[in-house]
């Protein structure tokens, strides 16, 4: 199959970023100083303009072109990735840092990988996109610092990440074997993995292959679960985050989460109808149990952390657990034969935006508070920050409130949509499927308890900043632009908290476009009508 020129034109932002990274690596050889920051910002601006040409995610229709899919979800996630790239560029913008150009160029490759992952409709492209995130991330970790802790963190992350990639690849191999294609969603006469799972023919020679689909689901969940720092792959996060710089921690906490959410939604949700043939409950019990384990481990272990990056690592694990609630809800709805994700996928998309804004903002602010020689790391180093750095303290407080889920901020709406989708699913199945209903009520209760535990350690940080007498003042030498990035994120958190209807509406639309059955492919022969899905009303009505 030849690649059409239309497909290439749909990759313009990624191509611009790739060229930008090449230029930066060249500039790095000449100690270009200010020129490299300008080149970086031009590359991001160019990519943003190219992305804007594809139209607003609010009214995009789903189109397939070669291995790419352009739909509201892919456009939205690409915008988030670009924003993350811009913010982390600001966080690492000090010119006198050794290897600054290499940092920026490598970061640009990571962003490019995240954007490819968001729009991949092909197993190969999805895997290559994920590796384009992983491999430069190893280099980023390696560039950050050159001390013992950093070397150890890089080593730990590298081997665990490779193992996760291998599990994912093994899962992909089973998917390919079962469906006989690498295309995820087919169109026209081309059958994709989705159609192969929906239109299972029990008389075909290869029908026994579908017995392998639970294995594929487990392997894929493990591989993407690593990206979300979900149990049982959560233990690397605290060590790795502690051993690297604040800006790198931000990249590690945000970008793989975006990729993991994209992968889960694009692929895992589609495998579920196939898995449901063998055992209906398995497909949603797996993410549900992982969600409960992940958020409980994250929140409980965060309580006694003294290192701020370690604390944020456990917080990132806990948020990975909340994200899995959305997957469990979507899986339960999909495995019951309806072609709807019951608000779970939309909640996941909205939550990952909320989480990304707060996390990258707080790490950007922490990067500002440290200096290239000495990173800020202990929670007690923040003592009295309200007096010495009032603006930085206020932005950090906003992020902590948002991560806790205090009402006027974005984090509250994120938790509300996710937990609400679990409760709605449970209410809709109260009579038809009592055990499912009970499971999801239990999930919502555990999630609410976890949010309460989480408040304890987020509020402790605010208490240290505002109510403790200052020790030695923070160096605050990370560059003014890093503070600008933090304040920008804080404004976005407040803005999306004040006007959540637009964004929640967009994420529910993205979910609808994601799970809708492509009309050009023959309808499923099984007696599962498309119209009889669960009656789900969005919590915040879209306009």
């Amino acid at each position, binding site marked *: 199959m030849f690649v059409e020129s239309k497909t290439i034109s749909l990759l313009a932002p990624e191509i611009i970023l790739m060229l930008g990274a090449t230029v930066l690596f060249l500039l790095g050889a000449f100690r270009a100083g200010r020129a490299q920051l300008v080149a970086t910002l031009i590359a991001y601006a160019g990519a943003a303009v190219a992305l804007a040409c594809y139209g607003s995610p609010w009214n995009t229709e789903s189109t397939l072109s070669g291995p790419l899919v352009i739909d509201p979800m892919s456009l939205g996630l690409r915008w988030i990735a670009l924003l993350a790239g811009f913010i982390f560029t600001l966080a690492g913008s000090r010119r006198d840092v050794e290897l600054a150009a290499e940092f920026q160029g490598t970061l640009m490759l990571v962003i490019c990988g995240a954007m490819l992952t968001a729009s991949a409709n092909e197993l190969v492209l999805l895997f290559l996109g994920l590796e384009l995130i992983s491999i430069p991330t190893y280099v980023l970790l390696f560039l950050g610092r050159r001390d013992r802790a950093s070397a150890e963190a890089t*080593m730990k992350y590298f081997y665990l990440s490779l193992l996760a990639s291998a599990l994912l690849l093994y899962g992909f191999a089973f998917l390919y074997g079962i469906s006989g294609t690498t295309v995820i969603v087919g169109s026209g006469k081309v059958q994709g993995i989705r159609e192969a799972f929906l239109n299972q023919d029990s008389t075909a020679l290869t029908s026994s292959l579908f017995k392998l689909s639970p294995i594929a689901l487990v392997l894929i969940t493990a591989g993407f679960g690593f990206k979300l720092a979900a149990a049982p792959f959560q233990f690397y996060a605290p060590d790795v985050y502690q051993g690297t710089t604040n800006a790198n921690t931000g990249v590690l906490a945000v970008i793989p989460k975006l990729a993991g959410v994209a992968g889960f939604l694009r692929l895992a949700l589609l495998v579920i109808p196939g898995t449901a043939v063998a055992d209906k409950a398995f497909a949603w019990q797996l993410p549900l149990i992982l969600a409960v384990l992940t958020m409980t481990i994250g929140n409980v272990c965060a309580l006694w952390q003294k290192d701020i990056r370690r604390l944020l690592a456990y917080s990132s694990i806990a948020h990975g657990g909340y994200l899995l609630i959305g997957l469990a809800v979507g899986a339960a709805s999909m495995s019951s034969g309806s072609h709807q994700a019951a608000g779970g996928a939309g909640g996941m998309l909205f939550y990952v935006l909320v989480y990304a804004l707060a996390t990258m903002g707080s790490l950007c602010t922490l990067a500002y508070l440290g200096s290239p020689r000495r990173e800020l790391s202990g929670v007690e180093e923040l003592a009295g920050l309200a007096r010495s750095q009032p603006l930085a303290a206020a932005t950090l407080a906003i992020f902590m409130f948002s991560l806790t889920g205090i009402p006027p901020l974005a984090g509250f709406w994120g938790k509300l949509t996710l937990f609400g989708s679990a409760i709605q699913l449970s209410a809709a199945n109260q009579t038809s499927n009592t055990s499912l209903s009970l499971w999801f009520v239990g999930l919502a209760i555990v999630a609410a308890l976890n949010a309460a535990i989480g408040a304890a350690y987020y509020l402790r940080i605010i208490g240290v900043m505002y109510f403790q007498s200052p020790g030695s003042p923070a160096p605050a030498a990370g560059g003014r632009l890093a503070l600008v990035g933090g304040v920008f994120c804080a404004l976005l958190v407040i803005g999306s908290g004040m006007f959540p209807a637009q964004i929640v509406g967009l994420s529910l639309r993205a979910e609808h476009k994601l799970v809708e059955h492509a009309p050009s492919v023959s309808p499923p022969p099984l007696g599962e009508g498309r119209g009889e899905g669960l009656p789900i009303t969005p919590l915040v009505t879209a306009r």
Partner: protein
Amino acid sequence: MNPFTEPITVSHYLIAGAVLFVTGAVCMATKRNALGVLMGIELVLNGANLNFVAFGSKFLRKETLGLDGDLIALFVIVLAAAEAAVALAIALNFYNNHATIDVDQADELKG
């Protein structure tokens, strides 16, 4: 069933792939030398590769799948090479800091 007279089928390749995968995973879990762990990675990736090639085989189903499986295997081989290059840099950096590549020495970060 006599294993010496039965024809080799796709499932035999799948079993070989699974054995490779598990061997690699065990190797990653038990080796202390960083380069030994890297060899485990190669085994794991090649186990997955063998699966891709076996599933793409024309003996599995009536219609042929073309070269998809083989091409994925090629992509993965290239990726494994890129990862090995980074792995060597990381191992060298670790050696500079710890004067050993025994991964059990990476035990300072905890809590």
